[in-house]
């Protein structure tokens, strides 16, 4: 049990996929311009991560070492396609706003990275704990990033006006450049916190 909690907690802060391992930059930089997009992307990625970690952890002994990477990609692609159809059928609004970034989850290196370094070497229950931790970590990272960008770029959070109509929108923040700068500052802050903690 202690081991499971440790696996779960790792993705939340210590080995945070965005701010510590700097994985999955494509969706991170591209879709975090509004909070709702960031949240939807985080949840979609978490779903793919959890389901593929379960499957790969179950079948890992059947897959020969030489073809493990293509096999992982096939399994991940299956879940991504499933997510794409599912969102289009039942959540058309979110599917429309994420559009082509849903199929692009397949190349998110966070997902392949976790299969290679965790699911393919650990039993199912530990893989689930790891996937949940990493998924939640990735999601909160995207949400924080997108809230900052949406607030400064459009003056709203989750589509609700916060700063009023008088606010001059910093369009730059919702363009790709704003994503790099926000991410850089957040990574800096988190490194600073970790440095202080280890210093004590």
């Amino acid at each position: 049990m202690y081991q499971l909690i440790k696996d779960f907690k790792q993705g939340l802060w210590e080995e945070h996929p965005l701010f510590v391992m700097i994985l999955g930059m494509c969706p991170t930089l591209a879709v975090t311009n509004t909070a709702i997009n960031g949240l939807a992307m985080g949840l979609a990625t978490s779903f793919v991560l959890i389901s593929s970690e379960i499957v790969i952890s179950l079948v890992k002994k059947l897959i020969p070492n030489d073809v493990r990477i293509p096999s992982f990609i096939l399994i991940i692609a299956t879940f991504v396609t499933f997510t794409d159809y599912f969102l289009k059928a039942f959540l058309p609004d979110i599917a429309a706003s994420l559009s082509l970034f849903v199929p692009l989850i397949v190349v998110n290196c966070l997902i392949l990275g976790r299969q290679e370094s965790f699911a393919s070497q650990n039993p199912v229950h530990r893989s689930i704990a790891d996937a949940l931790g990493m998924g939640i970590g990735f999601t909160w990272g995207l949400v924080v990033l997108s809230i900052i960008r949406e607030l400064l770029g459009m003056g709203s959070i989750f589509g609700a006006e916060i700063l009023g109509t008088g606010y001059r929108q910093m369009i730059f923040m919702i363009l790709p450049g704003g994503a790099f700068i926000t991410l850089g500052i957040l990574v800096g802050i988190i490194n600073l916190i970790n440095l202080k903690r280890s210093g004590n």
Partner: protein
Amino acid sequence: MNEKKSVQNSGPDNMYRLIFTLVMIGIISGFVLSFVFQWTAPHIEQHRLAAQREAVFSVLPGTVEYEEEIGERVVFFRGFDEHDNQTGVAVLISGSGFQGDIEIMVGTDPLAEKIRGIKILDHTETPGLGARITEQQFLNHFEDMPFGTYQLVQQDPGEMEVEGISGATISARNVVQIVERAVGKIQDYTGGGR
């Protein structure tokens, strides 16, 4: 260790095993996905039709009923109000955007030679940038625009001018071009004010 093992195993037997594994995974995932597709396809089609229906009503205000007519690579919709008077003609047209096709419903009043409203039905523009072509703020520029050709400007649009979207000039320009093409199609279809 692992490296050595795989080299020793790379005989023809191992080769077959590799191929077999990949083929099996491919078959299973194809099988699963065909079920997912069958399950979701009717819902997706339903959303598409609902969106199309709603688009006709929104680009031709006052419409309660419409007739559909398939044209050459476009679909025309003749809208009628509750007294059976024609509210206008809409056309569903698609053209290339920044990355994929943009599908637009353009509602017009062919008698007054004016656009009544437009709505984006489908696109694959960059979320947050090109995707802002779907925002009402941008679409409103086309309302009551006379037939003709339009200019894209950065701010303060005048007559026959459309205000672009910062960071998405190409997407906005393509929408303008598609709308111009739609106007041409409508003019051909109604034969100049039928």
